[in-house]
């Protein structure tokens, strides 16, 4: 029947890839869960992270993992700009988001998404590029694992862990979690809601951009201005699957998506595998609007 070796290696690759998906989704989750805004331009920030890793590698020979750390800084800055340019006007002095506000931010971030991808097309040209980071691979039994992919997966897991510690053990992290539950309560514990929202957003964008850097290991010729349209829907599905606002849900969701996408390609063509991965969103929404992992 099915070659078990093939299946096994696809599952392993899927898990490795899934770790990065988890970080990708984490960024989205943070913003969505805290300030309740869905960033449709999420894919474009991943794309920016990937391109910055590419250029850092091209000009300064920096490998993707270090680039990821640098991207965190870029991301924090960009995230602040993103927040104050687009979001602040909508959120200021409001306690809840109405449908109208939601729609405005949806449309605005959709516009931003196509603006950024076209801008990237103009600046970087439509050629797909990639990073040549071949540091060899190891054989685990009969399995051939590129070291780059392994390191990136480990880095992802560390990042998720750090974010968890940050949110649960630090003052700022707790303030953010308070904000996500009740904006007024945040003021009661002495924190400025605007500051909290801005910081949460910039951390979210930082995570998104660094996931773009880590992703480059898996796409040796896949960095192009439109790559966002492939990874953004995956992130949306993961966040809904794992539960909006639930960080560990993103980890599990990411791993599941990675495995599904890779193993499905044994049985069905790659395009159908992606289509199914995207469409999973609908049954999940039908079953429960808050996600299926409790």
């Amino acid at each position: 029947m099915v070659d078990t070796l093939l299946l096994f290696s696809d599952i392993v690759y899927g898990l490795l890839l899934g770790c990065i998906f988890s970080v990708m989704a984490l960024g989205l989750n943070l913003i969505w869960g805290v300030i309740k805004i869905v960033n449709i331009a999420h894919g474009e920030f991943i794309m920016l992270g990937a391109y910055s890793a590419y250029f850092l590698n091209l000009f300064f020979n920096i490998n993707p993992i270090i680039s990821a750390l640098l991207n965190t800084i870029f991301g924090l800055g960009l995230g602040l700009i993103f927040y104050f340019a687009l979001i602040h006007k909508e959120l200021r002095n409001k306690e809840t988001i109405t449908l109208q506000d939601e729609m405005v931010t949806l449309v605005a971030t959709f516009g931003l998404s196509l603006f950024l991808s076209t801008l990237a097309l103009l600046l970087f040209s439509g050629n797909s590029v990639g990073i040549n980071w071949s540091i060899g691979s190891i054989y685990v039994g009969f399995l051939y694992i590129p070291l780059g992919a392994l390191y990136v997966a480990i880095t992802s897991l560390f990042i998720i862990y750090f974010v968890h510690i940050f949110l649960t053990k630090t003052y700022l992290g707790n303030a953010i979690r308070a904000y996500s539950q009740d904006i007024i309560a945040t003021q009661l514990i002495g924190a400025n809601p605007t500051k909290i929202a801005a910081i949460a957003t910039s951390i979210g964008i930082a995570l998104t951009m660094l996931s773009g850097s880590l992703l480059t290991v898996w796409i040796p010729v896949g960095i192009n201005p439109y790559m966002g349209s492939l990874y953004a829907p995956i992130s949306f599905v993961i966040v809904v699957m794992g539960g909006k606002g639930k960080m560990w849900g993103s980890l599990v969701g990411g791993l599941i998506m990675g495995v599904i996408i890779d193993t499905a390609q044994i049985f069905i063509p790659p395009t159908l595998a992606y289509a199914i991965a995207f469409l999973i969103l609908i049954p999940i929404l039908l079953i429960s609007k808050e996600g299926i992992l409790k």
Partner: protein
Amino acid sequence: MIKHSLNKKAIAARTIAIIVAVIIVIAVVSIVGYYLTRPPSPQVAGTIKIGFTISLTGTFSVEGTSSLNGIKAITKWINDNGGVIIQGKHYNITFVYYDDQSQSSNIVPLYTRLITQDGVEFLLAPYSSPLTSAAAPLADQYNIIMISHGGAADSIWKQGYKNVFGVLTPASGYLKPAIDWLSVNHPEDKLAFIYAGDSFSVTASKAALNYALQKHLTVVYNQTYPTSATDLTPLLQAAKSAGADAIIGGGHFNDGQLIIKQLDQIGWKPKFICLLVAVTEPAFYSSLGNLANLVCGSSQWESSVKYSPAVAQSLGIEYFGPSIQDFVNYYKMFSTNEPTYHSAEAAAAVLILVKAIEVANSLNTTAVRQALLSLHIMTFFGEYKVDSTGIQIAHSMLMIQWQNGSLKVVYPPSFAETNVIYPYGS
């Protein structure tokens, strides 16, 4: 609401004012629009205007830029060498082009603009089969000759268009040299066909697959992927598990590179690799380095191929246009790179068009069409002869291979510089 008669008059007056204002706005917009979109005045006498779109940005930017430089080079050569002679009068070639951004949605509007507003007299098709298919209907709709230089899919010539002519070997012939070579030298090799899903790649690969089966070769894997795919490792793994010795297919530049990189990523060295399009670009070798060595590809033309007036004479046909060396020299005036086959095929399109105009001794579409149908000549690009549908039937496809940093023509033996080195990775 209680309305006094005074207010009724005010409302009526205001309504009429608004209606009049809007009518004036519409009239102004119409007049301005009319004048802004009128076709420009007729062109300079003594020139022939050729129009086309080419992909300078987007997925086909590498191939498109090569093609454009080829067109620029040949146009300069033609104008420097007497131009086009019609009924004793001398004409220069000029051209108008737009960047189609590699998007088919831009083709119809841009070609319509070229025809109705820029007043071009002849057309070149865009680069790539899908864009050429989108442009082809306009040739018959507006009764203008269109030469295809970058669209090889056989389906283009199955639609019944009268005014579309191809200078390049159609898609179905691209991978046949590889199959021919394998069937003679390594018929025991098991073949995996992995190729992009666009019409060109599918036609080329499927034709090769059927040809391979006809020649009694073993095929163990056959799978397409979307042109925008970024991860082909699952397919490559599956081909490896199926026991494949050779990989045939690919698509365009990006996926060709991807296949080689990911073969390395999964640690598999097949014995023979032959891919479409990507292999002939210098950038293929410069970005892949050692991994590109001994990869084979298909080429419509290489500068080391043997086409010349002497060869033409031995075949009993006329030779027209610059020698290969002349073309390369002119090309270097527009680019620091060597010309690729995309440059040559685009240049050949202009050359064949010019020859046909001279044979027809007129710019009239019907006359030029007749000339194109009856021509059988050789240029620096190779032979030209079409069948009644306009598809190219005389041009030969070449197989090339990267050997120690340079691209060598390895098949067919009559035009080849050297032999194939086998297996890949040795």
